[in-house]
């Protein structure tokens, strides 16, 4: 430890600390722009110049190593003179257009210019004008305001893992820009907006919507991936106008994925369902809640009395709140049906994990030195967990993958086994065997990497969970972990992938799981947030099942395709309009309060279920508030989870012909994101293609960009072919969760491709 004195206060800091670190420790604010605790040190803005005793000139606090006995003055006359001089230089070419700048009121330059800027300018020359850049749908630019701190550039290089912006040119002519007309396309791009200390990079969707000080703020939890990012939701006139990260070092750090940040636009979408609706005689009409719920209760009772309660099934998305999932299962069990499931994209239920979770704290990823990721589009499915792995990989974490694709996630991957989905289990077996010495190829390399580690984890991703042999992948992966003494876990797909298990929103004895409810169509369905053609493992079959049912009740914030197949549509609140709880992939229980009043006649889901429970005469539905629901659930802090399984599931036969590799593109994973206008305009939301490697394209006589007809289980889709040379042989990578491919069948399994 070093002892250093700043502004007369002494502090001890570890060797390698900078003066800025020491000042932060003391709570002394040193003005700065380019410095950011998560980025490398650039020392380019010079705003943090401080006086250091015995140094002949002022030194930048951000870059100057603390030394024992060092005496620093951050606010002495020489320090302030240097800081003021820098501020003058920063402002001479800055347009000073605060009144029309979106950053106004929350601008670091504006704030610091109050303390360090002059009342008028000595600069009488012509000012610089810099052309704006089109960075895509999310980031708006006013490059004349840029102060060249390079935070955005460093963010790309160091955090996002892809350098999409650079500082081109030199001297006064330096400009932050992408290459030619490229846009910024990483799934973390919005963080550049937060990092920009001026109004050069601002939020495009939020542009000119409101001033920072007009917004009220609520702390919330993201409803998307399993991370449970903490959000600051910003509101004006009962409308969510912006979402920013709420810093939580243990979860999202100071970052958000673009999905977490920009999907709020979906909350304000014109697709919102605002009133309960009933379809009678083929016509939809708006009704009062009372009418609608009585209609539903009557319908369910009718089905129950004529076909038995097991003719009714409930399907909820894992993005639903814990309270909703709890009440829904309680309702179903109350009316005598065990048919409830929230694992909508799962297809292999032979041996389901008891209570799958990450198997460790999210923050523990940083200390891993070896990891095996099985079946995951890591950065698309878990943008910020991917980032933790990316950062760890820079300091020695060896990343190994088993996937049908070679996507590198912008992470340094040490070894990758690229095999078709039906060969994945075999590959895990080979790795398991190679741990005891035998083996060849990638399996051996991966085994060797894993064996050489001291802190190892085996992680199963969304693809592994959705895989037709999910249970076997689980079994083999856990065996590998066991043998290595490694951590073993699941990268939770959605906000409540853990929570749904905790409240048993899964079938009990004699009940049907999600797949069975589709394979054996029910007479009545309760769809909780679920858009079956987009949210389920077998979209085509799910649609068919809905069309055959007597009564489908769609509880959703959106007027979705249920319009075609449902009988009742009930507007339930999205996360911002209800209190609720998500349990993230590490088992962390996070509750939140609604941020805005429900839109139109929308009602919080838990209240709707309370009324329905009472209408159906189910006992114990007299909750006063959502807290009392949580009290009944009885969990807080960290939930105890269990990744164990009992028996070894048998291997399925290898598929000879073409196989589909299904995946859910990042902005199509849930209803809110699907309706977020700007997100849907990004490169990551582009129209799905049928990706194949060059060998397969050649074999099929298909060229890049040519239209193809895909067939699967009687369903068809027409999309264009595209090249992905990283794909395993005989694989066709086709998105699910997208309307264009909704009529296809299962996410995995045989598929045929014809040239159109």
């Amino acid at each position: 430890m070093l002892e250093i004195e700043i502004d007369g206060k002494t502090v001890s800091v570890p060797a390698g600390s900078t003066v800025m670190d020491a000042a932060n420790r003391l709570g002394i604010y040193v003005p700065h722009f380019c410095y950011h605790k998560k980025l490398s040190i650039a020392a380019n803005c010079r705003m943090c110049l401080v006086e250091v005793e015995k140094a002949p000139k002022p030194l930048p606090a951000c870059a100057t190593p603390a030394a024992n006995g060092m005496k620093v003055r951050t606010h002495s006359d020489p320090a302030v003179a240097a800081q003021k001089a820098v501020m003058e230089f920063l402002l001479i070419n800055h347009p000073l257009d605060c009144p029309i700048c979106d950053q106004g009121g929350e601008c670091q330059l504006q704030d610091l210019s109050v303390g360090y800027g002059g009342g008028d300018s000595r600069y009488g020359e012509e000012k610089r004008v810099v052309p704006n850049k089109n960075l895509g749908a999310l980031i708006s630019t006013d490059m004349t305001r840029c102060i060249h701190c390079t935070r955005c550039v460093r963010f790309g290089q160091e955090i996002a893992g892809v350098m999409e912006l650079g500082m081109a040119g030199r001297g006064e002519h330096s400009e932050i820009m992408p290459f030619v007309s490229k846009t910024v396309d990483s799934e973390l791009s919005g963080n550049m907006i937060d990092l920009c200390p001026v109004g050069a990079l601002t939020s495009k969707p939020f542009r000119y919507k409101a001033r920072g000080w007009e917004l009220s703020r609520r702390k919330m939890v993201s409803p998307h991936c399993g991370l449970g990012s903490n959000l600051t939701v910003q509101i004006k006139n009962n409308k969510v106008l912006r979402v920013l990260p709420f810093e939580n070092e243990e979860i999202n750090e100071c970052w958000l994925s673009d999905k977490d940040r920009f999907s709020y636009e979906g909350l304000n979408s014109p697709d919102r369902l605002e009133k309960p609706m009933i379809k009678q005689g083929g016509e939809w009409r708006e009704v009062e809640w009372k009418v609608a719920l009585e209609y539903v209760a009557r319908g369910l009772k009718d089905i129950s009395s004529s076909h038995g309660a097991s003719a009714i099934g409930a399907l909820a998305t894992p993005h639903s709140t814990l309270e909703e999932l709890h009440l829904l299962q309680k309702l179903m069990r109350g009316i005598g049906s065990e048919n409830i499931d929230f694992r909508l994209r799962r297809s292999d239920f032979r041996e389901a994990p008891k209570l799958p979770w990450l198997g460790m704290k999210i923050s523990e990823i940083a200390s891993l030195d070896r990891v095996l990721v099985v079946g995951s589009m890591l950065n698309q499915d878990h943008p910020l967990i991917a980032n933790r792995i990316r950062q760890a990989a820079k300091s020695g974490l060896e990343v190994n993958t088993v996937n049908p694709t070679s996507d590198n996630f912008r992470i340094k991957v040490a070894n990758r086994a690229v095999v078709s989905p039906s060969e994945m289990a075999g590959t895990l077996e080979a790795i398991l065997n190679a741990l005891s010495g035998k083996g060849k190829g990638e399996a051996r390399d991966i085994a060797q990497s894993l064996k050489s580690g001291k802190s190892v984890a085996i992680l199963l991703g969304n693809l592994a969970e959705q895989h037709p042999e999910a249970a076997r992948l689980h079994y083999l992966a856990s065996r590998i972990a066991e043998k290595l003494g490694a951590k073993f876990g699941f990268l939770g797909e959605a906000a409540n992938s853990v929570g749904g298990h905790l409240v048993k929103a899964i079938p009990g004895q004699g009940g049907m799981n999600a797949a069975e409810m589709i394979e054996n169509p029910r007479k009545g369905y309760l769809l909780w947030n679920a858009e079956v053609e987009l949210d389920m493992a077998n979209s085509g079959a799910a649609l068919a099942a809905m069309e055959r049912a007597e009564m489908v009740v769609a509880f959703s914030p959106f007027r979705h395709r249920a319009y075609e197949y449902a009988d009742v549509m009930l507007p339930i609140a999205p996360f911002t309009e209800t209190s609720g709880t998500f349990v993230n992939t590490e088992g962390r229980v996070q509750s939140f309060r609604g941020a805005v009043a429900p839109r139109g006649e929308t009602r919080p889901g838990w209240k709707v279920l309370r009324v329905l429970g009472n209408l159906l005469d189910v006992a114990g539905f007299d909750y006063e508030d959502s807290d009392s629901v949580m009290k009944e659930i009885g969990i807080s802090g960290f939930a105890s989870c269990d990744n164990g399984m009992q028996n070894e599931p048998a291997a399925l036969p290898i598929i000879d012909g073409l196989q589909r590799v299904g995946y859910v593109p990042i902005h199509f994973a849930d209803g809110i994101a699907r309706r977020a206008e700007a997100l849907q305009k990004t490169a990551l939301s582009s129209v799905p293609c049928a990706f194949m490697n060059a060998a397969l394209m050649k074999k099929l006589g298909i060229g890049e960009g040519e239209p193809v007809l895909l067939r699967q289980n009687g369903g068809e889709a027409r999309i264009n072919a595209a090249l992905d040379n990283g794909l395993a042989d005989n694989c066709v990578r086709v998105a699910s969760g997208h309307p264009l491919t909704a009529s296809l069948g299962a996410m995995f399994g045989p598929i045929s491709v014809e040239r159109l």
Partner: protein
Amino acid sequence: MLGSESLKKIDKEVAKYPPDQKQSAVMAALRIAQEEKGWLSPETMGFVADYLDMEPIAVFEVASFYNMYNLEPVGKYKITLCTNLPCALSGANDVASYLKEKLGIGFNETTADGKITLKEGECFGSCGYAPVFLLNNRKMCGSLSFAEVDRILAELE
């Protein structure tokens, strides 16, 4: 995208550096590409980026930082005249006026026939031979008098 001769030269440059430091050859690669193509189009820079496993913007940063790269097409001959102080003390500004008048173009312009582009340069580190200009980034022409300028221009085809 680049001819095999150029690629061979680039490979030779890459070999100078440690195997995991291919990027070190980017300046040479851009120079070699420019010698083949005359200037660095976005396609050429994109190709170099691919060839050296770099992000295209990282290549562009380099191409736009060092001022001997041509980011726009130039004439068959590029004359870069140093006008810095030591050259100016030895008549560089007179040579500049003479060149401009003779070619009918200003700095950063190209003659109508596309033959000659005139550029103003910064110090070449050859002040003892002032005034100097650089022909196509390669040939240094020094001790320029009007007669010497005439002679050099006459030799350009």
